[in-house]
């Protein structure tokens, strides 16, 4: 029972940053911009928020500056990739290099290898919902998480509405699907691409805050550990649909949580458990794809 609760709680834990990256990244995906810099942006969010917390202890300021600086990266990405028509993969990879370089540089100047928030008690951030928290299974899913975790899940719905029910969402999709047609009716395609990337930056910053300040109270230079790339994978799996992509993110959270929680029973084979999340993703993807294409008689990949 404890184990199940644990698995569920950790699922939410591990899903959150990925969901945030997914919901942020899918607008860029829909706008036909491959934002491979999710990883770097998330890292920046984590770094700046922890840094500001370290020096000021002021959480709102930390979150604000984390978002602001990540938006700057978003702007750089957009400017180089969209306005200057640079190769977005290269731009994204460059940002993924620059963020840890700057963070590493600052920490070197601070003569530390990671930033530890002694002034922060992360239990304080946890929202324990009365009554619900005592219900077995549901309690560990719904209660005891920090605010951004709740935001992330609420965000799925908000972004789904934004994507499908508002003009903004329609335009982003139009820009991605047929830039010519968008231009021919005078939609400022650049603006929507910028906006899509910046939404991504915003969410990634929150993901970073969640990962560092809220959950751990510390920052280390590769703490994002590839979560941004996993998010990209989830976005592709879900083809940028908010709910579907988020489900893939959660799937990953489940797999990861299972891997961590079950590995303590696995003895020497525990090392192999870490492979599970990735294999599950691939297997699910393959299964979905096979079902989807079972009737396709057209050859080639354009269908």
């Amino acid at each position, binding site marked *: 029972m404890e184990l199940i609760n644990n698995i569920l709680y950790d699922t939410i*834990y591990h899903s959150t940053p990925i969901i945030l990256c997914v919901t942020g990244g899918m607008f860029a995906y829909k706008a036909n911009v491959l934002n491979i810099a999710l990883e770097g942006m998330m890292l920046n969010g984590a770094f700046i928020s922890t840094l500001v917390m370290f020096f000021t202890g002021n959480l709102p300021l930390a979150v604000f500056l984390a978002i602001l600086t990540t938006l700057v990266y978003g702007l750089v990405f957009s400017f180089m990739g969209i306005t200057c028509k640079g190769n977005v993969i290269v731009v994204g990879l460059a940002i993924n290099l620059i963020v840890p370089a700057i963070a590493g540089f600052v920490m070197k100047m601070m*003569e530390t290898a990671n930033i530890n928030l002694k002034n922060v008690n992360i*239990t304080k951030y946890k929202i324990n919902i009365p009554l619900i928290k005592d219900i077995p299974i549901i309690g560990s899913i719904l209660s005891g998480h920090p605010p951004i975790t709740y935001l992330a899940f609420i965000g799925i719905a908000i972004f789904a509405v934004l994507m499908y029910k508002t003009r903004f969402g329609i335009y982003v999709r139009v820009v991605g699907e047929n830039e010519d047609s968008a231009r021919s009716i005078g939609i400022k395609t650049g603006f929507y691409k910028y906006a899509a990337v910046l939404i991504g930056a915003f969410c990634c910053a929150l993901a970073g805050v969640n990962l560092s300040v809220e959950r751990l109270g510390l920052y280390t230079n590769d703490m994002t550990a590839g979560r941004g790339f996993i998010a990209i994978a989830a976005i592709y799996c879900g083809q940028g649909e908010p709910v579907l992509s988020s489900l893939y993110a959660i799937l990953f959270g489940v797999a990861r949580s299972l891997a961590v*929680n079950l590995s*303590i029973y696995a003895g020497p084979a525990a090392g192999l458990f870490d492979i599970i999340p990735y294999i599950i993703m691939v297997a699910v993807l393959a299964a979905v794809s096979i079902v989807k294409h079972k009737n396709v008689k057209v050859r080639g990949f354009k269908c």
Partner: protein
Amino acid sequence: GGGKDDGRADSGEKKDVKIAIVCDSAGQNDNGYNQTAVEGAKKAADELGVEYKVVEPENGVPAALETLAEDGYNVIFNLEYDFDALIKGVGGSEPIAVMYPDTTFVCVNDNPNQYDDGNVIHDNVICALFDVHEASYIAGALSVQVLENKDILFPAENYSFTDLDKGGRTIGFVGGTNSNGITVFSDGFIEGINKAAEDLGVNYDYYAKYDAGFSDPATGSTVAGTYYNQGANVVYAVAGSVGDGVASKAKEEKKLAIHVDADKDDMQPGYILTSVIKNTSVPVYDITKAYVDGTIDDMDRLQTFPLASGATDITELTQIKQAIADTDEAQAKWEEIMTYVDDLKTQIADGKIKVTNAQIGEAFDPSACKNVTIK
């Protein structure tokens, strides 16, 4: 960070002694193993007037060793486990130790510089080993002692330990990777737990994960979370930044963690029971001093730093002591535990207690630890 070097190190005109520290991947500011080595170098610079250089190699340790030796550094400390190029030579070239016979190389944490028969291979290579298994042993014994007396020692409102008879006699271990350098900690730790458990007539469960990596604190946090939820009251982390996640989780769960390398007790004050220190500044300073004094050739080519040397130990416990309840009973108990711990230290120093040292290839025998169930 940085040293005093001014970029003209290759002029070769200076007669001054130059030493270099080649860091491992954690980097010079790791608040641990590398950093203390740098502190040792600083101390040597201040007191002995040597020049020092700290290098964080990008293209591998061998390349850095070679370049430094080429540039006339006299003593080069290698904190990374990569010794093949130095001792054996790779790719058809001579060992670096042979290429630069006038340079003294120091291998920290391992003893690759001996033939199977125990004879030294290169005279200009010194190896420094820390008996961290002994410090871990103390940490293990301390954990049990503290847990068994937790209700007396700690104010109930600050901690939420699992009851001892409801699975609270559980201790976890999170290791970065499954290597001798890590298991040496775990083995000593288990033996220490076993010793104290035996003395108190109780039985402990032991969880261990040896592949948590060194960089993702979130992994440390979740693994520790799992342990704590399984009833563990202490988790010992030997996994770099992952350990920071463990410590953070300890605070979150209001339980205890044990950290490693440097005194990190103040990272989450009150929730880090102790840290197992590996004080690399001692060998760095000592060997540099020997070089400056000209006595380096008389030194043993294998330098071991046991518990008694002070280079490895647990911390002074000042942080945790502040968390102890202000009652007389608690204070008295604490003193009692301290006595117990000091006694163990003496016994180890005297050789009465022998702790398994995986670093030199000794095999750990779980069946000898009857009071610990390894899960």
